[in-house]
């Protein structure tokens, strides 16, 4: 019924528009010199608006950004991002200036003549070569960083952890003493064996299933991702890490945590962000927020996609070992 009401309102607006046009001057259709004058100035005004917005966003939104990367691999990402962002920032400011300033400067007038200037191979060569060289350099650095992040050498001996996804929760499995995960398949899912681990596999016995991630600072961690139903994506923004979880295959991603959760909480930029958030939360009468690393789902996966998270805690190695030794092995839990 309400929909009808809205449609009625829309029709009413349409009719009033129709009436307004009866008295409007519909003969005014082609830009005159006066229009060029006005619109040219508006273009200049728009340039000012655009600059103001860009500068405001760059400054004021600094505080909401993710803090410095919390993994060693993420450093590459941050460096590359800074270089790229500066570069595109400069080009953006310059190009927008040229576009709207020229619109103003060369606004039409019947006494003016446009310059017949159809081609210049020299200019075109310049603006093909400069982007090309810049881009080759960017690609070079980018690919170097990509390879550093994506390839895990066997000599690095990373800790293996499985991250397991389903609608709408995350679980994790530590590989235990042998640092080898027992095989898993959906056919083994039964009762408390929610991750479908093949319990006849010897390497599965010492695996440990948990609902929160604990990671040791300074040790490389190799995540193996599985999904039991639809695509999910394990997104750990603070570590600059993300990988899809794909049913039917195992994907992976590795990084080395750089700061413990406690250290991260002491960083100035994190404190500033947390303070900003808590100011909002206090005003709404909500509990204060404390910084934590998170793993979020970042691939549309169903109705509760927006609420699929797992806490990550980075601690010193001793504390990590202590925590891990307190967790029960699958052999203890399932058998």
């Amino acid at each position, binding site marked *: 019924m309400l929909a009808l009401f809205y449609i009625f309102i829309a029709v009413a607006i349409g009719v009033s528009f129709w009436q307004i046009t009866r008295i409007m001057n519909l003969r005014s*259709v082609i*830009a005159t010199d006066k229009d060029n004058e006005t619109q040219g100035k508006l273009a200049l005004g728009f340039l000012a608006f655009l600059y103001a917005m860009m500068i405001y966003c760059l400054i004021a939104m600094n505080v909401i950004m993710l803090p410095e990367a919390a993994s060693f691999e993420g450093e590459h990402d941050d460096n590359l991002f800074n270089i790229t962002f500066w570069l595109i920032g400069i080009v953006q400011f310059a190009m927008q200036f040229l576009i709207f300033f020229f619109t103003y400067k060369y606004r039409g007038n019947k006494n003016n003549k446009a310059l017949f200037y159809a081609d210049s191979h020299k200019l075109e060569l310049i603006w093909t070569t400069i982007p090309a060289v810049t881009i080759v350099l960017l690609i070079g650095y980018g690919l170097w960083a990509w390879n550093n992040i994506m390839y895990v050498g066997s000599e690095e001996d990373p800790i293996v952890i499985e991250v397991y996804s389903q609608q709408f929760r995350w679980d994790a499995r530590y590989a235990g003493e042998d640092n080898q995960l027992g095989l898993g398949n959906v056919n083994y899912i039964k009762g408390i064996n929610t991750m479908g681990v093949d319990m006849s596999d010897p390497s599965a016995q010492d695996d440990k299933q948990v609902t929160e991630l604990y990671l040791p600072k300074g040790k490389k961690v190799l995540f193996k991702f599985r999904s039991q139903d639809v695509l999910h994506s394990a997104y750990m923004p603070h570590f600059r890490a993300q990988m899809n979880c794909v049913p039917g295959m195992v994907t992976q991603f590795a990084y080395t945590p750089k700061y413990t959760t406690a250290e991260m909480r002491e960083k100035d930029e994190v404190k500033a962000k947390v303070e900003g958030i808590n100011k909002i939360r206090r005003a709404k009468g909500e509990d204060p927020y404390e910084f934590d690393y998170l793993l979020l789902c970042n691939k549309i996966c169903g109705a509760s996609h927006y609420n699929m998270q797992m806490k990550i805690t980075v601690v010193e190695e001793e504390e990590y070992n202590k925590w891990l030794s307190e967790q029960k092995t699958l052999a203890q839990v399932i058998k």
Partner: protein
Amino acid sequence: MSDHHHKETFVTKYIFSQDHKMISKQFLVTGIFMGIIGGFMSMLFRLQIAWPDTSFSIVEAFLGNHQTDGIMDPDMYLALVTIHGTIMVFFVLTAGLSGTFSNLLIPLQIGARDMASGFLNMVSYWLFFLSSVIMIISLFVEAGPASAGWTIYPPLSALPQAIPGSGTGMTLWLVSMAIFIASSLMGSLNYIVTILNLRTKGMKMTRLPLTMWAFFITAIIGVISFPVLLSAALLLIFDRSFGTSFYLSDIFISGEVLHYQGGSPVLFEHLFWFLGHPEVYIILLPALGISSEVISTNARKPIFGYRAMVGSIMAIAFLSTIVWGHHMFVSGMNPFLGSVFTFTTVLIAIPSAVKAFNYVTTLWKGNLQLNPAMLFSIGLVSTFVTGGLTGLVLGDSALDINVHDTYFVVAHFHLVMGVSALLGMFAGVYHWFPKMYGRMMNKALGYWHFWLTIITAYGVFFPMHFIGLAGLPRRYYTNTNFPMFDDLADINVFMTVMAIIGGAAQLIFIANFFISMYRGQKATQNPWKSNTIEWTTPVEHIHGNWPGAIPEVHRWAYDYSKTDENGEYVHGQDFVPQTVPLLDGEEPS
């Protein structure tokens, strides 16, 4: 052809018309109608993002049993996002843009009586109409329309257990898209054949206006890539309905193991993006073609670097078919492939930069007639630059890891492809409205429409980059479960307000469009003093376009302000239509 005495009835003239001019109007009006639906959906879900716990009677009014007390359900939120994307990408910016202007301009600008096959052209429109109807019907099925995102990745799109929209809603989506693809292919083949075979005397390929080059290359990439989407859709239909396992394997859902073995969703991603990426250029290139023409005409200046512009269209089109993997850097694909796709992707920046610089140089020292169409084209260059630059972040695999599927991506593609293409489409409508309807659109309303649109477009999508950099994933029904995103709430409110103003501003356009159609000032034959030959046809449409012989073409389309050494116009005026022969001793440009 013109001397055939067709007996035209209402039905053959307005409904099952084979005249390209009528078909183009049919595409445009259908596209605008779909645009209203797609745009309205974005208003609804922007309300949800900004005020997730607030009850809205408009939500209550339109979403029926998919809302509770004026707050939409999470399923419905995803459905709205999905259908908004589908409608805008395919129905508005592919069919609405390409269908309208390719149909209108190809015969008129190359000097042909009509498309190579008028019948195929008519079928193409009616298939598009049918697919639109099916897509709209899918909004009304009990469990809701398709809601797995416009990219419809399986298994989510394959299993109704995973999300209710993957039932009948998804079936209708697939049927609608299959028909849409057939329509698009018929159109594209027609465009290619017409441009290659039906050019008038003197219209060499090197004299084609840039609009023609853009539509021609667009049609080619459409023909190359759309069939792949069709095959992807067919395999998905097989998985959904006939128990095959192309995309599915090892699935445990709703307490049971499904029988699927051996398929992979990554295969679907490859097939989908093999269309999906070229699709970006299928949308964008026509808009760039339109703006080239509009900017040159209104700057009273030749487009700078015609050959470079054609070359970069070709380079972009070629590269667009070998970059699809940049949507899949974190899909689990081999990292080596990621390197290859990074390389090819970032290369696209080079021809794109050439285009942007050439536009700016065309403005330089021009005599800019700031008509609404011109402003929209300038706006297109602006958003194309803003949105294109962030492509350097997303195309770089190492950087993509952290911004993949965040709002940074949403901001990027809305600016570079959504807003740019829409601005190009508006530019085209304002510029060629006199050719379509024999009347002019009102300029004051056009100015209001432009400034409100460009300000709100930046207001929505510029801050959006930053909430993406704050790590906010896209397609979240609400962010309130994550205190780390609490400080983004105000920005989201700002963006929603901007979006609503921007949406309302489009009503100005719609009013201007329909009112001018009936009441606008009568157009003169060549209102913008343009060189291209569509302006040599009579204002009143006739079948076969030109009453007598088709004019012969003697020069390229960009002899604006051509002066001799004394600074006098060679032809006594600042434009020289393509049909004017060269004077004695005049150098061709």
